[in-house]
């Protein structure tokens, strides 16, 4: 098959395990529901948006009346809930996202990039086979057997492209803005944050203040932010650096969530990263010493947080040297700090710790090697 034919087949004919898409659906469904409930609360608090100043992107007659809007809001919330619990989940995603996009067209004052990103991602997710796992409404039988989970996943590629486009759009905007490029925007933001902090009665050390109100620091931070976003946008397509790009993305979004008010943006993008998880499951191995209380606790922890079913868990006789061993996809078996790093790279909640743990493991193994050679 020619290279082009192979790419075409891989893009449109690919059939992979859809288990992780269920995790993605539950995450996006929950965010979609929260977004819908925000609109419901706004409606209850401020009334119908059409009764005061609004800016429709579609002709005014296409807007719903107050009763119609209330009904559509209810429908959107129910559809998002269905997507979350797994009752007609794909139809639920499509309905909730389409209604959300329609509401954005009804009033551009409601437009926020994070809301738009969430709705687009939910829309695309509806075209993936995300209805084969984590159907919460089915209780313990929430996931179909493996052979029924294998399905065409071409829309997952589109979802991934959409994630890249979000970062590229954001980077492009910053690159086109001279004040962003030069660091002036961040300089003002840091200066204001420092001022606000001082106004609240907190005392910042002089050297911290000097750094945060320095033009040079803001300039470097601006370039770093632009490069980070560009690296995330492109790096997620390169298998060798994908994990690093995702890790950088996680750290980037955690820092944004802690320092800026961006509604659901950080959560949307963090959830979207599930689309980049290798679809195949149980390709890694976690062995733990039977009878060792700490190892058994770790095994329970892994069972609880291994949402993407990365690990095959095996108890082993406690005569083995280490309390646990982790074997990664490449077949590397490790314990200790490296083992923890290999665990962290596959467990979503531990993923922010992956790079520090991996670096620590590398550093300590070098020390051991140096000591033994000496």
């Amino acid at each position: 098959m020619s290279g082009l034919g192979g790419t075409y087949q891989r893009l449109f004919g690919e059939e992979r395990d859809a288990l992780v898409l269920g995790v993605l659906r539950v995450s996006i469904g929950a965010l979609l529901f929260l977004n819908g409930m925000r609109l419901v609360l706004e409606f209850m608090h401020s009334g119908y948006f059409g009764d005061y100043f609004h800016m429709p992107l579609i002709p005014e007659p296409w807007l719903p009346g107050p009763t119609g809007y209330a009904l559509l809001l209810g429908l959107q919330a129910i559809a998002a809930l269905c997507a979350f619990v797994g009752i007609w989940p794909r139809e639920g995603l499509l309905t909730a996202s389409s209604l959300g996009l329609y509401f954005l067209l009804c009033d551009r004052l409601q437009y926020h990039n994070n809301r738009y990103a969430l709705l687009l991602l939910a829309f695309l997710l509806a075209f993936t086979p995300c209805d084969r796992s984590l159907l919460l409404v089915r209780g313990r039988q929430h996931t179909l057997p493996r052979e029924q989970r294998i399905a065409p996943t071409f829309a997952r590629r589109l979802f991934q492209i959409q994630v890249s486009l979000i970062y590229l759009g954001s980077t492009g905007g910053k690159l086109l803005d001279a004040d962003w490029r030069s660091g002036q925007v961040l300089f003002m933001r840091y200066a204001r944050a420092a001022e606000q902090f001082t106004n609240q009665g907190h005392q910042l050390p002089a050297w911290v203040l000097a750094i945060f109100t320095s033009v040079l620091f803001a300039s470097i931070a601006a370039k770093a932010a632009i490069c980070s976003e560009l690296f995330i946008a492109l790096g997620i397509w390169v298998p060798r650096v994908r994990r690093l790009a995702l890790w950088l993305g996680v750290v980037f979004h955690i820092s944004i969530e802690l320092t800026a008010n961006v509604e659901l943006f950080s959560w949307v993008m963090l959830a979207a990263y599930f689309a980049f998880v290798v679809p195949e499951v149980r390709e890694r191995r976690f062995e733990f010493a039977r009878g060792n209380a700490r190892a058994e606790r770790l095994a329970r922890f892994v069972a609880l947080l291994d949402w993407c079913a990365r690990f095959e868990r095996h108890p082993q006789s406690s005569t083995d040297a280490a309390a646990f061993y982790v074997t990664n996809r490449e077949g590397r078996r490790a314990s200790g700090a490296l083992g923890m790093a290999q665990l962290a790279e596959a467990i979503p909640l531990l993923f922010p710790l992956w790079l520090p743990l991996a670096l620590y493991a590398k550093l300590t193994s070098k020390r051991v090697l140096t000591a033994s050679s000496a």
Partner: protein
Amino acid sequence: MPRSLLNLSPRLRPVFFCAYLATQCVLLFRAQKSPDLVFGFQMFNATSDFKISLFRKVKHRGRARIVPVQDGAWETNDPSGTRHTYRWQDRVHYTRLATLNRFGHAAYGLDAQLFRLQAALDDFVRHLAGDEETLALIAEVDTLKNGREAGHVRLQADRP
């Protein structure tokens, strides 16, 4: 195996793929020309600020005069002598534009907020039933772009 209408046939997949991507690219490029960058994924705000002061152009003894709008509200009598109160914040709920005479953050940049302010003025003057006095609504806007003075802008909406 779950069946769904959303399982696109192999023939439809490339069509859907290309149509979606083409739409996204068009929206992304168009967004760069739109004052409020709508659909453009411009995630992070600049640090610009603006201050709106409202004025009315009114008929007074046959001549046009500019009078300030105190706290965003004014009162007039309609031809039948009934007193009406008009309040900017009753019609404009959008917080960035509802705040008057005080510097506030220009979310999505100054161009976005000035574009929205002009639309708000146009909308407001269309809803002045009973006010025979007001000829136009004027917004004097002081702007600070990323900490630097960016000048003064005057926006006006005439009664239709």
